[in-house]
């Protein structure tokens, strides 16, 4: 049985505002000629404009959605409407689901098993490749609790084999790489010269078209990561106190170019960070093949940002056992469905695999464990569930604020992260015992665009509470808080 989500949590799954509205329109009992839930799956028949009702189903454990309507929105209004009804206690419990629902669930289970098998195979392949030990990071951040569990703390993992040249992505062909490296090196050398000129001639000299041209040349030089940074400079120029901000950006991108040039001298995780930030791709498969980290992950919040007709969705997680933060990043063309499988305020039992780097944050959900954990999951880190826990205990924890740290400890963590990866611009934190103000949170500054967080202030009433927030160099952006009853309040 899945803990019922609140209305806000459901609406947060909608791809856009018009879907939210449409979903509310079908979230009426009268629209559904049939509806039911088995506790893990919701299903229903919704009267549409056609003769046949639409068949909608939601697998609550992921969640995953299915609907027979032709909408290209995902999840569609029927799935969302069904969830809203359920959220309002409007879906009766049933013993068994109809056949079309069970068929869908079986198909999904089959596909999940296949992909798990593929993952296992990939990991085995990697493990048998001499020198590449996927278990290396397994042992890494295992100490539960506070800052000791900072990701990758300690000399954790040389992610690549000693034999490979630092600065190449494992699994990529050598010759192609070297051609690309020549191009990138040339592009970044030009960037370094250009930056040096700017500092000699004065920051006020550069115009938007200069950055545009530079960004285009960096794209041609196959350094899209750096190109992205450069193309955002026009926005920095428009900020208040721009000379300082622009100098920050110039200094960091210059540092990246230098780090790339000297990557052979860098420790391997940092070299990985530099390559990824420069724009060398890593495939999903490579990441998924990495060592999984199993934990109960609290979904702390999310933010969508649209840029160049592409919407990026960031979902931040934090592991209960490992204390490890994670960022699940997904993209979709504007108007197309985004990944809606992570619901803010819930806790998922899952294997995550992280992108390599000095302060790894971005991750993929490799495997979600079902409601009752399988007895012998071969690759699973033994869960720390207390032995007296009854077997039917749901891993979906009842609402409760995730564990957090004090502002001071959080700053220590940020300092460590920046020491590993000075280009870090975002890091999820869970702060406990913090009092929000109009421009500060627990004595730390809020991001200028997050000033006057009235909802957070209202929930706190001037008293300390637990807040999940995104650290950024410009200040904190609150994501979620938990009220007296442990209910997640999305901010």
């Amino acid at each position: 049985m899945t803990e019922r989500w609140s209305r806000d949590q459901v609406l947060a799954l909608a791809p856009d505002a018009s879907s939210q509205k449409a979903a509310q329109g079908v979230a009426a009992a009268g629209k559904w000629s049939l509806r039911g839930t088995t506790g893990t799956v919701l299903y229903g028949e919704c009267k549409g404009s056609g003769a046949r009702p639409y068949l909608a189903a939601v697998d609550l454990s992921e969640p995953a959605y299915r609907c027979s309507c032709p909408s290209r929105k995902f999840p569609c209004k029927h799935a969302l409407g069904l969830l809203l009804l359920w959220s309002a206690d409007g879906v009766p419990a049933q013993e068994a689901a109809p056949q079309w629902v069970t068929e869908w669930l079986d198909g999904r289970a089959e596909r999940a098993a296949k992909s798990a098998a593929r993952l296992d195979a990939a990991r085995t392949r990697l493990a048998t490749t001499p020198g590449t030990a996927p278990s290396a990071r397994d042992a890494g951040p295992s100490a539960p609790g506070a800052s000791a569990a900072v990701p990758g703390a300690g000399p954790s993992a040389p992610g690549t084999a000693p034999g490979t040249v630092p600065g190449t992505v494992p699994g990529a062909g050598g010759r192609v790489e070297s051609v690309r490296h020549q191009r990138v090196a040339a592009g970044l050398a030009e960037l370094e010269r250009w930056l040096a000129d700017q500092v000699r001639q004065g920051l006020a000299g550069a115009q938007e078209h200069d950055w545009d041209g530079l960004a285009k040349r960096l794209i041609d030089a196959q350094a899209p990561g750096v190109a992205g940074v450069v193309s955002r400079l026009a926005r920095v120029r428009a900020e208040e106190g721009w000379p300082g901000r622009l100098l920050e950006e110039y200094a960091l991108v210059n540092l990246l170019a230098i780090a790339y040039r000297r990557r052979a001298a860098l420790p391997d995780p940092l070299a990985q960070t530099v390559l990824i930030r420069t724009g060398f791709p890593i495939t999903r498969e490579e990441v998924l093949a990495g060592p999984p980290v199993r934990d109960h992950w609290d979904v702390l919040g999310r933010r969508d940002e649209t840029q160049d007709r592409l919407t990026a969705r960031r979902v931040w997680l934090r592991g209960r056992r490992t204390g490890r933060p994670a960022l699940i990043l997904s993209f979709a063309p504007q108007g197309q469905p985004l990944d809606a499988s992570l619901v803010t305020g819930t806790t998922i039992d899952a294997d995550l695999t992280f992108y390599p780097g000095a302060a790894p944050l971005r991750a993929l959900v490799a495997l979600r464990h079902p409601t009752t954990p399988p007895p012998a999951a071969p690759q699973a880190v033994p869960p720390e569930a207390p032995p007296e826990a009854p077997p039917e205990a749901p891993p979906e924890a009842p609402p409760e604020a995730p564990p957090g740290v004090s502002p001071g400890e959080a700053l220590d963590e940020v300092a460590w992260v920046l020491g590993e990866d000075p280009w870090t611009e975002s890091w999820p934190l869970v702060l406990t015992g913090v009092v929000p103000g109009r421009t500060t949170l627990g004595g730390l500054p809020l991001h200028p665009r997050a000033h006057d967080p009235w909802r957070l202030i209202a929930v706190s009433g001037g008293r300390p509470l637990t807040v999940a927030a995104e650290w950024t160099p410009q200040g904190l952006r609150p994501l979620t808080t938990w009220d007296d009853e442990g209910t997640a309040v999305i901010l």
Partner: protein
Amino acid sequence: MTGWDELASTALVGTDRRPYGGDLLEAAAVEVARRRAGGRVNEPGGVEPAPGEEREAVGRRAAERLGRLLGGEHERLIPEWLAAAAATGRRVPAYVLPELLERGRRDRSIRVHLGVLAGQRGRWLAGQNPAWAYLLEEPTGETWELGGAADRRAHLSALRAADPGQARRLLESTWERETPDDRAGFVEVLADGLSMADEPFLEQALDDRRREVRQAAANLLTRLPGSRLSQRMAGRVRARVTISGDTITVEAPEACDRDMERDGVRPKPPRGIGERAWWLQQIVSRAPLSFWGSPNVLLGMKIPDWDAEVKAAWVRAAVLQRDPEWARAMFGWDPIADLLECLPPEEQQELAARFVRGHDLDSQLIMVLGGVSSHWREGLATAVLSKIVKVNTTQPWNLGELVKLAGEHIDPALFELAEDYSPAEPVQKVAALLRFRADMYKELSR
């Protein structure tokens, strides 16, 4: 100047003009990392924590429904939700407060409920955000002296409800200094708890410079059959009306003299009405209805001249004087919502139901129904549902407002009746809205 400011200003003018010993960009990179990684916790400044709540919060489901309403779903139900929640003596959970207070900032009509619902936390928040400060404006003696027009009116209303005489004396004490707009508003406040004790003050107000003030005073005096104004009006009617047998002979006034004007009779008729008819209507509507006797007898009589004018004036008189007997009788002649409002709720519904059965769907029907006080019982509910089913077969595009009114005013406990009444879509829409409201009340009663 700190190290960073030094670096930034040097970079701004350029090292060609202001030489820098070393690699400026590399030094800046170190400084950026140092500054970003070296954040400190500042002791937060002291806002006193909110005092503890005396009231319980409404349940989570109820609060979520309020969130839906505030989010735009069935927005017209917001006042009903707030009134029902306030009646339970509870408050809303803290997280909805910003949205709710923001709503109250734009919509004065809901503020009356917010005092209870916002709780201590709401007042604490309002103390921090000037946009929500309206929540703190409790009417006190001070607001009468210094407050804005709305606060002063609220203060006067509250005092009037508690002690009508005291309220009138307070008003008299500052009357001369009030602006004409305020005076007109204040006179209307006296409608609550009106008695002959107010008569001398109101009689005096008939000499006010501002027409709105004179009119408001005259309207109130009309409601007091013993007032000098009512007696003067009765005298005017007596001079022009003779009842003999079953005939009412009426002679309309020839002129509107100064005394009539002082008593609230407007000399200039609106377009389409003759002067004499206009004056006649006004004196009849302002003369005490007790002058005439039983309405049912009178409506059976013949009025050879000025028939329509006299009857329109009786309608107006019933409304002005809030006379249920006359309102009941006149509704048959001119079914308007104003007349219904003079009647007790059950009777409103009976009359309205009869009217719905015998009347086509038009704007008059909508207006009449809009005047029937809420939670329609079965009689009126079935009359309206049957009308919806009928209209749905001929002109379904006209049903929008009727469906909304039905959904918003029928007793929500009747949702099953509506669900089973007909499978027609508009009826199901009504049923869905009723169920929504039924759920709303159910959640609030937990």
